[in-house]
């Protein structure tokens, strides 16, 4: 079974997964005496043994840590903040020589490969490496924040629709249908532009148009149906199961049943979806920022940095290449790790989110 652990796609000869939390043991696991182990312990063991998934999971952690530590880098190594625009005559050492940060023909310096201007300067002379880390921070905050909000509303809508059925289900399902009808990127652009124009006022909550909260909210709304729909389907089946009936017969209220009987049984789906949600949210953030409907200047994000880089790709191509590489690494790490999580929990499940 060693080969199986490294296969990325769904496993051809994997165990039949019957829904709920029953997991059939592989021969290898039976040998290891795991017959009585809980499903999550089994899944964790399978994930740990999937070396590819673990490697990319660790890569993602490293990227996150590097970005969280951006202020450390900025303060102690590069001595610059993400929006420091140097004077026109400011110099920096590159290859043992003092050179202008932006030369006389307007071309920013390339990588110096030491602390200050490690990856060179951007079009305004700002330190590209510092911006890359701060930008990554914003991209990851937006990606993870949006995925958390999507998960919350996806769970609330999915569980409510599936459990209550009837008009609650109709109302929620129609609402999700409408969101679903828009191409993801267009709805993102529409909401992003409208909110970036005037900010958002929801009762006491007031958000300015340039706040990071705007892209977080926009992206989370767009992806809600992708989680709520499969959860609704699962809950529809779960509510007919004997253990739910037993809880009802004991006189437990709806809310209690949803929390203590239904919710633990749909968590598997949430765990499988979460890394993929973050990956897609990070990609959508980049696309929206690239088009100007996401993170607003001067705040950096990988999307805005690619946008800036593409504008001067002829004189300084590294400005477009580097943030893209970071973005691809992050999304790839999440995708491969997410595949591993899915295989560990449920080798036959199919998860797909449109880009």
């Amino acid at each position, binding site marked *: 079974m060693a*080969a199986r652990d*490294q*296969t*990325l*796609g*769904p496993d*051809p*000869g994997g165990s039949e997964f019957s829904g709920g939390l029953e997991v059939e043991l592989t021969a290898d696991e039976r040998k290891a005496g795991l017959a009585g182990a809980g499903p999550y312990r089994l899944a964790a063991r399978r994930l740990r043994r999937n070396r590819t998934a673990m490697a990319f999971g660790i890569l993602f952690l490293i990227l996150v840590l590097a970005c969280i530590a951006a202020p450390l880098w900025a303060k102690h190594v590069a001595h610059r903040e993400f929006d420091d625009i140097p004077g026109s005559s400011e110099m920096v050492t590159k290859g043992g020589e003092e050179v202008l940060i932006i030369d006389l023909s307007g071309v920013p310096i390339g990588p110096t490969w030491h602390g200050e201007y490690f990856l060179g300067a951007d079009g305004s002379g700002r330190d590209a490496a510092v911006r890359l880390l701060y930008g990554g921070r914003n991209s990851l905050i937006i990606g993870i924040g949006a995925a958390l909000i999507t998960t919350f509303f996806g769970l609330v809508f999915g569980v409510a629709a599936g459990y209550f059925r009837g008009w609650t289900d109709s109302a929620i399902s*129609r609402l999700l*249908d*409408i969101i679903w*009808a*828009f*191409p*993801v*990127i*267009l*709805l993102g*652009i*529409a*909401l992003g*532009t*409208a*909110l970036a*124009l*005037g*900010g*958002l*006022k929801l009762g006491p909550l007031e958000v300015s148009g340039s706040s990071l909260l705007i892209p977080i909210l926009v992206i989370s709304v767009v992806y809600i149906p992708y989680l709520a729909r499969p959860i609704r389907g699962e809950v529809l089946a779960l509510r007919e199961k004997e253990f739910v009936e037993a809880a009802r017969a004991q006189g437990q209220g709806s809310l209690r049943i949803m929390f203590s009987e239904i919710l633990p049984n749909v968590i598997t789906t949430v765990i499988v979806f979460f890394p993929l949600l973050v*990956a897609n949210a990070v*990609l959508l953030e*980049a*696309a929206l920022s*690239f*088009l*100007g*409907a996401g993170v607003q200047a001067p705040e950096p994000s990988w999307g805005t940095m*690619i946008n800036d880089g*593409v504008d001067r*790709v*002829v004189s300084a*191509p590294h400005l*477009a*290449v580097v943030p*893209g590489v970071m*973005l*691809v690494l992050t*999304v*790839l790490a999440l*995708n*491969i790790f997410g*595949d591993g999580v899915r295989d560990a929990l449920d080798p036959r499940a*199919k998860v*797909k989110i*449109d*880009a």
Partner: protein
Amino acid sequence: MTRFIFRRLVAMVIVLFAVSLVTFFIFQVLPGGDPAVRMAGKQPTETQIEAIREEWGFNDSLPTQYLTTMQNLFSGDMKSYTTQLSVTEEIWHGLPRTLALAIGAAILWMAFGVALGLYTAMRAGHVSDRLLTVLALIGISMPVFWIGALMNHYLGYELSNTLGFELFPNGGYVEFTESPFEWAHHLILPWIALSILFIGVYSRVLRSNVLETMNEDFVRTARAKGLSERQVLIKHVLRNSLIPVVTLWGLDFAVVIGGGAILTESVFNLQGVGQYAADSIGQLDVPPILAVTMFGAFFVVFFNAIVDIVYAVLDPRIRLEESAA
């Protein structure tokens, strides 16, 4: 059957109406700043702003504004805030370009997605399978505007400079009627850039479908009755595995035309419908974005209904399920 089609079409009209309301709501009701103030330019007087409000109907009640918006959208009277050109005309101008991009890319991604998916399924577990599966994942993880911009720069610009001739052009679009060769020449890179993501997705979907189908009883039967492996594969496995992929194809194609190609168009400067909307974002020009969003969603909803109906015609089980619900 007629009843099913009728019900599906009614549902479609309701969703279309809801979609138009939501789009209108997003742009007119969300606190998006006063468009009249923006249009009046720098340091406008109160009378100027009031005149613009009157002229563009910003003072009307919301239902009236909604009706006017929809009327203008379909009659071609909707005008851009900045250029004052007809939005509908601009969309018609961009549509052939978007179609050319979408159709070419759709053919490319279907062909390569299926070939790659079938090949990796056949070689499941081998080194080549793992390598290609990782490649497919990289393809899925790459933002199209990034890989497109790099292709445009390195293959369209740097390579042309090195070679001294244009193996690939550096963006732009040439009308088919002007020169069919130059038309295709200018679309090669955009086609490839747009396909990469879908090739990754389709090969993964097909791979898992093929592997699942191989375990089915009817495949065992086909083998048992002595069909060659090749016949089993093509007649039984592939045909059954392709059904969900073809559905996916129809839906993805609709999404790409309905706005999904916006990034590719912008990066390669194809001046299609998507780029029209993208260019309007920078100028906060609402009508083009509103119109493209609405048309895009309309197209997707319409296409979904068609796919559903075709599906129901082919598979009676769906009709029954639908009427039982």
